[in-house]
């Protein structure tokens, strides 16, 4: 038994056999297949060869065009190698005669061939063993199905262990079989973490190097509440984790029941709690947990788990699904926030590969850079707005001219729809994310030109404190409780109050109970949180008076160290939660 500690990013406890995805994300677990499955496994293997060949052909063409035919010839050679009848027949024979899994057969045969080459003692051919190794990895990758943008093929419950998972890879995991995941890198606000919450599976990230201690198939317990991962737990540890999971579930049930009512503070001030979603079907999870609408629909995920670009109808269908779930509640749709760590495969060419993508072409800048793509989304948005309370929100606004340009496009699209006699709603509330320090500084000016603000704390913290949220080396500089962050949020809240527009907090910070009293005290009147956190946050709001929240905010704003503020807020939220915790 081995216990590792990381950062808990998605709650719940799960145990299942480990499935290790290496950096290339192929599975290396299963050694054998059932006898009845042999034919379909051979078909799967042949498909992976065809896929690999197609990919190699593309590489060959690209290499010829860019570097000349001589380089293209290298890939042509790989193509012949991938179709080598000697190799293919031997692999198929292992699958059909010994019931070996295609993955295992590919490894055995290609590694044997590589050894044979090395034994020829010709330095020139020794290096060709690397080509075989490449082919092996390519076939395994295609067998895993991940490169082809299709869901990871799974047939039994597993816990995914990996060095890292990108957002689109995470989105492809089938939650039916994936019980949890644990990664070596990643932080609490990484998109992987956000998506784990969306898939509602426990997740622990930032565990450090541990994959070398796992061979795959052993039982793993992932505790997404306390951040521990147990490799090959003993019987006691399994019992303990099961009991904790039961306690957590019953507490959840109680809170969900209480969460049905609209959210008010103890002194009857209305503080609605909305849900953050990535996929339309999550709107239902939000409603079941008592969400009073959708405060942040991250539409870029329409682009993340597919090969082609979504059409206007794809956008429309997605928005309609959300609106149907919340027909008479606000649904805030954020326009595409692509770039930085969210780059869909089919759009790679759009983004510059400068070393600092967070400061490059991303988010609203991508939309304004390619207005035709942006208009497709806006058309679908205005059409869907006819059927509910849809509000549009622009991400990463950093200057007034940028905001005006985006707003002008909404008008253009409305006119186009009008001219074409397409039913739509032209006057919908337009808001912006405040997540760049320049937007916070200019908040009084912005407040005159938008209908609402929504503070995106993840990016606001990263840009204000100049710390990459996903880089463990500077993680200690990325501090939600930094006094500069509190002051920035207060500036935005004050500007909104003065202009009489609403202000929501929709970043990860808002799903953390300790900050909720502070936000209320700063005058934030709406919260938008991950679906799973809704009952807990509503419970907390019910327990606090605005007077008490104001006092907490006052005291916190007099402190000058992040650590001090953090400890203070944690203490306060514990005091708030204790009394009714004893009723249980």
């Amino acid at each position, binding site marked *: 038994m081995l216990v590792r500690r990381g950062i808990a990013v998605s709650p719940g406890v799960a145990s299942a056999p480990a499935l290790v995805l290496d950096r290339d994300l192929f599975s290396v677990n299963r050694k054998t297949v059932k006898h009845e499955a042999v034919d379909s496994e051979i078909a799967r293997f042949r498909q992976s060869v065809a896929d690999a060949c197609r990919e190699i052909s593309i590489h060959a063409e690209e290499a010829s065009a860019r570097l000349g035919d001589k380089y293209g*010839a290298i890939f042509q*050679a790989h193509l012949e190698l991938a*179709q080598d009848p*000697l190799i293919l027949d031997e692999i198929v024979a292992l699958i059909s005669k010994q019931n070996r899994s295609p993955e295992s057969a590919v490894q055995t045969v290609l590694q044997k*061939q590589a050894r044979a*080459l090395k034994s020829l003692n*010709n330095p020139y051919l020794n290096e060709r063993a690397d080509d075989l190794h490449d082919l092996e990895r390519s076939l395994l990758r295609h067998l895993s199905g991940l490169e082809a943008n299709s869901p990871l093929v799974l047939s039994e419950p597993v816990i995914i262990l990996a060095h890292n998972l990108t957002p689109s890879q995470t989105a492809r995991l089938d939650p039916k079989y994936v019980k949890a995941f644990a990664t070596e890198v990643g932080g609490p606000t990484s998109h992987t973490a956000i998506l784990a919450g969306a898939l509602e599976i426990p997740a622990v990230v930032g565990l450090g190097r541990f994959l070398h201690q796992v061979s795959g198939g052993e039982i793993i317990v992932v505790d997404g509440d306390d951040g521990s991962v147990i490799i090959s737990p003993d019987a006691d540890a399994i019992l303990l984790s099961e009991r904790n999971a039961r306690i957590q579930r019953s507490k959840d049930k109680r809170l969900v029941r209480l969460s049905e009512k609209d959210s008010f503070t103890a002194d009857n001030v209305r503080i609605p709690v909305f849900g953050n979603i990535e996929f339309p079907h999550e709107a239902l999870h939000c409603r079941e947990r008592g969400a009073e609408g959708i405060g942040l629909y991250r539409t870029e995920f329409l682009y993340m788990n597919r090969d082609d670009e979504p059409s206007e109808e794809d956008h429309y269908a997605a928005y309609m699904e959300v609106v149907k779930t919340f027909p008479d509640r606000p649904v805030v749709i954020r326009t595409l926030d692509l770039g930085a760590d969210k780059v869909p495969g089919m759009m790679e060419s759009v983004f510059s590969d400068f070393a600092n993508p967070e400061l490059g072409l991303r988010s609203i800048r991508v939309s304004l850079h390619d207005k035709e793509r942006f208009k497709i989304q806006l058309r679908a948005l205005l059409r869907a707005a006819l059927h509910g309370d849809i509000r549009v929100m622009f991400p990463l606004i950093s200057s007034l001219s940028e905001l005006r340009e985006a707003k002008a496009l909404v008008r253009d699209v409305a006119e186009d729809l009008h001219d074409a006699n397409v039913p739509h709603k032209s006057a919908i509330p337009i808001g912006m994310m405040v997540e760049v320090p320049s937007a916070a500084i200019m908040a009084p000016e912005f407040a005159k030109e938008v209908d609402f603000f929504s503070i995106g704390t993840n990016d606001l913290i990263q840009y204000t404190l100049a710390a990459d949220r996903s880089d463990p080396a500077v993680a200690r500089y990325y501090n939600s409780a930094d006094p500069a962050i509190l002051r920035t949020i207060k500036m935005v809240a004050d500007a909104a109050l003065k202009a009489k527009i609403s202000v929501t907090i929709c970043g990860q910070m808002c799903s953390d109970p300790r900050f909720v009293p502070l936000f209320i005290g700063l005058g934030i009147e709406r919260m938008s949180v991950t679906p799973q956190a809704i009952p807990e946050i509503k419970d907390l709001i019910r327990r606090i008076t605005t007077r008490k929240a104001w006092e907490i905010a006052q005291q916190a704003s007099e402190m000058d160290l992040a650590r001090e503020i953090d400890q203070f807020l944690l203490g306060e939220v514990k005091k708030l939660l204790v009394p009714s915790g004893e009723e249980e």
Partner: protein
Amino acid sequence: MSGADSLELEPTLVRRELIVKNANGLHLLPCSLIARAVKEFAGSVKLVRGSQAANAKSVMDIIQLGATCGTEVTLEIDGQGAEAVADRIEQLFADEFMTDR
């Protein structure tokens, strides 16, 4: 497919002696060119070095002949159109596989 046609054909077995002239011998690129040249051919194609025979449709099999520069190999082709295939391969050897120059 009529039996009469095949009976009219000349004996189909073709044998040629070839010498590896390119500096790096039969490594991956030359072998892949050979395999590509013969893979659509229905009959059998072998490259023989001493007592070792390789299926010329398999890159890996040819590579494992370990034929370096100066090695003599025998090409054995059996099947309809063998002459044309033999010419093609002979040309590849003569051109030093257009790779190592």
